[in-house]
């Protein structure tokens, strides 16, 4: 099991000091994510879901404990090394797409490739191929505000994919999309997991994403409340496995 774990989280605590009191955003979280798995993290605001997500992405450091991606220990790295891990090993997909508004679809994807060390010319070739892969070969030279929300998220997915990361981290990727477009994005992420062997970790409230997930983890008060594989999850109207849906 642990040999296959692409993400290993061991007894991770995150503590903030607010005035005189200590607030524990995470309380000893331990979690393994297997290569090629689709994992959804569920939890209400303030549950520690975002903190856990940020730890996996190397954009926040635990107060104690260990986070590893592909064996690389993230919690003890220099800023330059963390930037390397984010660039080469992780692809980020955001709820608000986060494309650079002044840059075309092609430029938005190519810049991620340039950060990974490709020449601008090679980066453009790779970005073109990746945008074609997500069905946007005809939108290369459009600015983000000239395409639909779903297409913007596809550009963002192409940007996350272009450096062939091990893990795609998606923060509420369907949160700003309508039902049908959200389903298309979920399908695309699922396809990429199968075809590229990429591990997908998504923080989500979206029930549609749960049905596409291999594993669902519920976070409550900074700890894992429950972890279930898809077959074990009972989805009913208004609740998932007994947890109310907001």
């Amino acid at each position: 099991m642990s040999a296959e774990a692409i993400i290993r989280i061991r007894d991770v605590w995150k503590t903030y000091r607010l005035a005189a009191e200590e607030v524990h955003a995470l309380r000893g979280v331990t979690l393994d994510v297997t290569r090629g798995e689709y994992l959804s993290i569920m939890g209400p605001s303030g549950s520690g879901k975002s903190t856990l997500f940020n730890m996996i992405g190397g954009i926040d450091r635990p107060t104690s404990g260990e986070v590893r991606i592909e064996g690389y220990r993230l919690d003890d790295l220099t800023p330059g090394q963390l930037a390397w891990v984010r660039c080469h090993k992780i692809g980020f997909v955001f709820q608000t797409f986060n494309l650079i508004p002044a840059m075309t679809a092609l430029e938005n994807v190519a810049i991620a490739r340039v950060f990974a060390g490709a020449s601008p010319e090679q980066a453009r070739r790779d970005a073109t191929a990746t945008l074609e892969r997500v069905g946007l070969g005809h939108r290369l030279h459009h600015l983000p505000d000239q395409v639909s929300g779903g297409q913007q998220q596809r550009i963002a997915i192409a940007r996350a994919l272009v450096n062939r990361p091990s893990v795609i981290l998606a923060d509420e990727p369907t949160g700003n999309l309508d039902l049908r477009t959200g389903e298309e994005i979920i399908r695309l992420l699922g396809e990429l997991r199968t075809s590229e062997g990429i591990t997908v970790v998504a923080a989500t409230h979206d029930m549609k994403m749960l049905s596409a997930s291999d594993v669902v983890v519920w976070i409550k008060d900074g700890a894992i409340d429950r972890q279930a594989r898809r077959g074990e999850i009972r989805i009913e109207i208004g609740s998932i496995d007994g947890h109310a849906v907001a």
Partner: protein
Amino acid sequence: MDAVIPEQSAVPWRVAVAVSWAGVRRRWLRSLVTMLGIVFAIALLAYMLVVDDLTRALVRARDPRLDVLLQKAGVDVLAGGGPDRMMILLVGLALFTCLVGIANAMLMSVTERIREIGTLKCLGALDGFIVRTYLIESALQGLAGALSGTLLGVGVALAVTLASYGGYVFRFGSLPPVLGSVGIAFVSGTVIAVLAAIGPAWWAARRQPVDAMRVEE
């Protein structure tokens, strides 16, 4: 045993230039307003320097009829010309105001783009890249503003001296000092724009990747 993780490497300057240029193009109206501040201040500087160059050359000519014109224009012929203190003060104030104005515009621009900066850091951008893009963005505005301001200032200076002294300007005027003044004005505009952007660029580079997650605009 832990694998050794390399340090992220820096990207070529031309990439930072391309990103900066895209930013200027996208926010062309804001860039234009920022640029206007530079145009005004540098035009005033160029005007003062060029009028001074030409006046000094005319005073050195020691032509009696020209001296009368110079005295009519308020030039102290015996002292050899030179800009008055009020003019120097005014130009100094204009340059300082320009510096503060650009710093403010850049700070606003950076604040608006916190999420964008966080996103670039998530993609692997280093602090140095962020600093460079903002310095280049300001330098591009500075170059354009300084060029326009210098042309405007020199144009007005020539028009004013020609109106006061007519053909004497071409007869006694000397080109090298004027070219020197043009260079000083042009370089000053660009340097001021870059200096003004240092603080905001440094602040921008200190933003964290987690800022990419901000939902509010």
